[in-house]
C-alpha cells in the first residue's frame, strides 16, 4: 500500500489472456494514454480528512445517501469499512477491485480506467439522522449536530435536502470524481440509496496560497478572504473540531454545510455593472474591494463617500459576510459552480453555486446566514434551494476504517 502506482489500473483483469470474453476491450483501454495529465495523488490517510484543507480541485461529484430501512448496525459498519478501503484505492488511482473472471459483473465500473487520480479526495460526512435510534449511534452524536433551523431566503426542495451520509469527491478530472461516487453507491446498494447527487464544474473557492481566486457564475471573485488550509491557527480556531466537542471521537473533524444556491442568472446579467459591484462590494474585473485597488486589499468598511454613504454599501455581500462585522466568525468555503440544465417551468438556466463550507460548529454558518439572508443585496438574485449538514470525522490512520471509527 505504499505504492502510489497509478499504472496498476493496467492490471484490471489479472492474468492476461485468462478472460476470453470481454477482456480484450479492457486491455486496449488500459494501455491507451491517460485522460488527464495530472498524476497528483493526495494522501487519503492522515490526521484530518483530505478534501477540506487540501488544495481545492476543479471538479466535484457530491452525493448524499440514505440508509435503507431495516439495515442493521453491523451491515452499515461493514459497508463503511469497505468504503474507506475502496476510497483509499481510488485516491491512489487504483480500481475498486480487480476482475479475474468474465462470468461475474466487473468489480469496478471501469469508466476511470486510464485516468490518473488528478488529486482525487474522498470526504465522508454523517448527517444528524444517522444518530437516531436506528443504529445505536445516539450516544456518539455530538450536541452540535442537529437539523439546521429555517433560515431566511431559502426555498428548500426536499429532493436536494438532507441525507444520512455525504460523499464529497473532488478531482481535477470530472470523470474520476463521478466514478468515485458511482462506485461507492454501487458497493452500498441495498444498504444505502441515493438521496441526491450534484456535479460541480468549476471551483469557486481557494484553499491554497498557490491558487488564484476563481469566479462564480456571476463573474465575481467571491472567495478572496477564505481561510487557507495552510493557515494552521485559523484552521484550528474556526474549522477543525477541537477539545470543545462533547464527542472526542470527532476531534480533528469538521462540520460540513452544503447549500445549493440557485442564481437567477438572466436577471443578474441585466443588472448594470456599478450595481453588480455594489451588490458584492468588489470591482468585477480586478476583484478589488470598492475601497481598494488590489484583490487582496483589506476592505475598509468605515470608508464613506462625499454624500456620506458607505463606499462598500451597508448591504454589500462582502460587508455582511466579513468576520469584522460578525464578531470574528469565519468559515472555510469550498464551493463549486453547478448547473442542472434548464428550469422546466421558466426555461431559464438552472444553476448557481453549490456552496460547501467547513467549520468547527454549525452555529458559525447559522449566524452568518441569518444575517446575510435577511439583508444581503445579493438575495434579489439568489435563493437557497438545497441544504444539508454533516459531521465529517477526522482522518484515518492506515489501520483504521470508517465503520470502526464511527461505531467506536
Amino acid at each position, binding site marked *: *500500500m*505504499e*505504492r502510489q502506482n497509478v499504472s*496498476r489500473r493496467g*492490471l484490471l483483469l*489479472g*492474468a*492476461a489472456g*485468462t*478472460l*476470453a*470474453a470481454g477482456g480484450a476491450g479492457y486491455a486496449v483501454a488500459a494501455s491507451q494514454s491517460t485522460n488527464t495529465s495530472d498524476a497528483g495523488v493526495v494522501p487519503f490517510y492522515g490526521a484530518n480528512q483530505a478534501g477540506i484543507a487540501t488544495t481545492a480541485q476543479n471538479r466535484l461529484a457530491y452525493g448524499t445517501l440514505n440508509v*435503507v*430501512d*431495516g439495515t442493521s448496525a453491523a451491515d452499515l459498519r*461493514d459497508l463503511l*469499512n*469497505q468504503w474507506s*478501503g*475502496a476510497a*483509499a*484505492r481510488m485516491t491512489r488511482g487504483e480500481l*475498486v*477491485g*480487480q*476482475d*479475474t*473472471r*468474465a*462470468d*461475474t*459483473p466487473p*468489480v469496478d465500473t471501469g469508466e476511470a480506467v486510464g485516468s490518473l487520480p488528478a488529486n482525487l479526495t474522498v470526504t465522508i460526512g454523517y448527517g444528524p439522522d444517522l444518530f437516531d435510534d436506528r443504529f445505536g449511534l445516539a450516544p456518539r452524536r455530538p450536541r452540535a449536530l442537529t437539523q439546521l433551523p429555517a433560515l431566511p431566503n431559502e426555498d428548500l426542495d426536499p429532493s436536494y435536502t438532507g441525507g444520512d451520509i455525504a460523499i464529497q469527491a473532488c478531482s481535477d478530472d470530472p470523470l474520476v470524481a463521478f466514478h468515485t461516487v458511482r462506485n461507492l453507491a*454501487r*458497493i452500498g*446498494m*441495498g444498504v444505502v*440509496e441515493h438521496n441526491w447527487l450534484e456535479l460541480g464544474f468549476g471551483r469557486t473557492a481557494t484553499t491554497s496560497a498557490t491558487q488564484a481566486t476563481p469566479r462564480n457564475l456571476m463573474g465575481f471573485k467571491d472567495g478572496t478572504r477564505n481561510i487557507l488550509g495552510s493557515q494552521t491557527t485559523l484552521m484550528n480556531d474556526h474549522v477543525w473540531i477541537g477539545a470543545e466537542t462533547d464527542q472526542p471521537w470527532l476531534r480533528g473533524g469538521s462540520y460540513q454545510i452544503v447549500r445549493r444556491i440557485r442564481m437567477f442568472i438572466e436577471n443578474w446579467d441585466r443588472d448594470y455593472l456599478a450595481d453588480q459591484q455594489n451588490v458584492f462590494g468588489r470591482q468585477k474585473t480586478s476583484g478589488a474591494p470598492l475601497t481598494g485597488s488590489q484583490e487582496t486589499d483589506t476592505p475598509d468598511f468605515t470608508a464613506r463617500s462625499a454624500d456620506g454613504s458607505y463606499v462598500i454599501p451597508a448591504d454589500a455581500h462582502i460587508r455582511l459576510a466579513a468576520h469584522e462585522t460578525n464578531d470574528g466568525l469565519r468559515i472555510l468555503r469550498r464551493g463549486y459552480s453547478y448547473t442542472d440544465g434548464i428550469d422546466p417551468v421558466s426555461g431559464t438556466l438552472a444553476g448557481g453555486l453549490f456552496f460547501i463550507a467547513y467549520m468547527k460548529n454549525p452555529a458559525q454558518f447559522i449566524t452568518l446566514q441569518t444575517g446575510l439572508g435577511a439583508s444581503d443585496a445579493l438575495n434579489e438574485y439568489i435563493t437557497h434551494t438545497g441544504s444539508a449538514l454533516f459531521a465529517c470525522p477526522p482522518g484515518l490512520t*492506515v*489501520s483504521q*476504517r470508517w465503520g470502526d471509527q464511527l461505531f467506536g
Partner: protein
Amino acid sequence: MNHGRIPVLTAGIATLGLVASACSSTMSASTGTSSGGDAAVAVTLTPQGCAPSPAKVAAGHIAFNVTNKNADAVSEAELRSSDGSHILGEQENLTPGLSGGFSLSLQAGTYQISCPGAASSTATFTVTGAKAGTTWQSDARLTAAVRGYAAYVTTNVNTLISNTQAFCDAIDAGDMARAKLLYPTARVPYERVEPVAEIWGDLDTAIDGRWENPVTVASQFVGFHRIEQLMWEDDTLTGAPALCTGLLGHERQLLTLVTSATYSPLEMAAGATDLINEAATAKITGEEDRYSNVDFIDFTGNIDGAREVVTLLTPYLKAVAPSALTTVAARLATLESQLSTYKRSPGYDDTGFVEYSTVLDAQRRQLSAAVNAYAEALSKISTYVSD
C-alpha cells in the same frame, strides 16, 4: 422486452468462452471477508516474509487467511501469477495485529505470495492436480437445477399459450371486459421466462414489443402491447382477432424453440438478474403496460422467474456461497414486503394489486431502490455457479 441489450442467455445457441484460471469470490479484497473455501491457507506476515501454510494444496476454491503478526513494515499480502506480473487476489491495510483474507478458485500451477516490505518478499505457492469437478455437469446439484429450469421454462410457455388462447377467445367473442381481465393473466408466464425468449430477439419483439421498440411503424407494432393499446387506448377490438392469431403463432414458435434449448447455471443466474433489471427499467416507470396500468402483475412475473432460479440453485449455493444466498433472500424479502403494501383484493382489473398509475413518484423511487438492491445481489451469484 429487451431494450437493445445483447441477450445474456445463449441457451442452445452459443456458449460463453470462459477460461478463467482464477476467480475471486469476494467482490472486494478490502472487505477482509473470506468465504466457503475447499482449502484454507494461512499467510502470516512477519518481518521475514509471508510463507503460506500449507504451501501446496489441491486445485479448487481456496481461502487465504492473512494475519499480520508483528511486521511493522509489511501491510499486505498478494497472490500473484507465477511471473509476478499479475495480482490475482490481495489483502491490504493489515497493520500488526490485524487479519483479513480473500478467497478464489485456482487451477493447477505455480503462484507467488508477495508481501512488499518483508526481508523475503515472495514465496512460492503451488496448486496441484485438476480442479475437482471441472465442469458444472459433474455436480449433481447443478445438473438438477438446470433440468428444473428447463422444465420451468417449458411449463410457463405452455401456460402462456393456454392463457393467451383464453384471452383470444374472449376477443374473438367480442367480449372486451373479459379480454381486459384476462390480459394480465395471459402475460404473466411470459414475464417469468422473458430472458429466455429474448434470445430469439425477433420473437420477443413480435410477442412483447412496444411501439417505440424497435420500430415506430404502425404495421410492425404487433403482439400483446398492440392489443393492449387497442383495448385501453382506442377502446376497440377491431383488428384484435388477427393480432391474436399472430400472437399465438409466435408463442407456438417459442415453445418449439424452448423445448429443444439447453441451459447452464451461469445462464440461469444471469437471466435472473436480467429479469429484475427488466423490472427496474420497464415496470418501475410504468412504461411496459402504459395503456392498461397492470404493471404490478408483470412485476410479480419477473420476481417469480428470478425466485425460481434462486430456489433451483439453492442446494448448491447453500454449500458454496451461503452469505451471497442470505443477501439475495434478504433483498427479496425487502422487495416483497414493499410490494405487499400495494396488494388489494380483487384489486384493479382483478390483478390483486392497485392500478400502477396510482403509485406516486416517491413510492416508485422506493420500489426502485428495493428492486435495484435485489438485482445487484442477484448479479453476484453468477460467479459461483459457472465453471
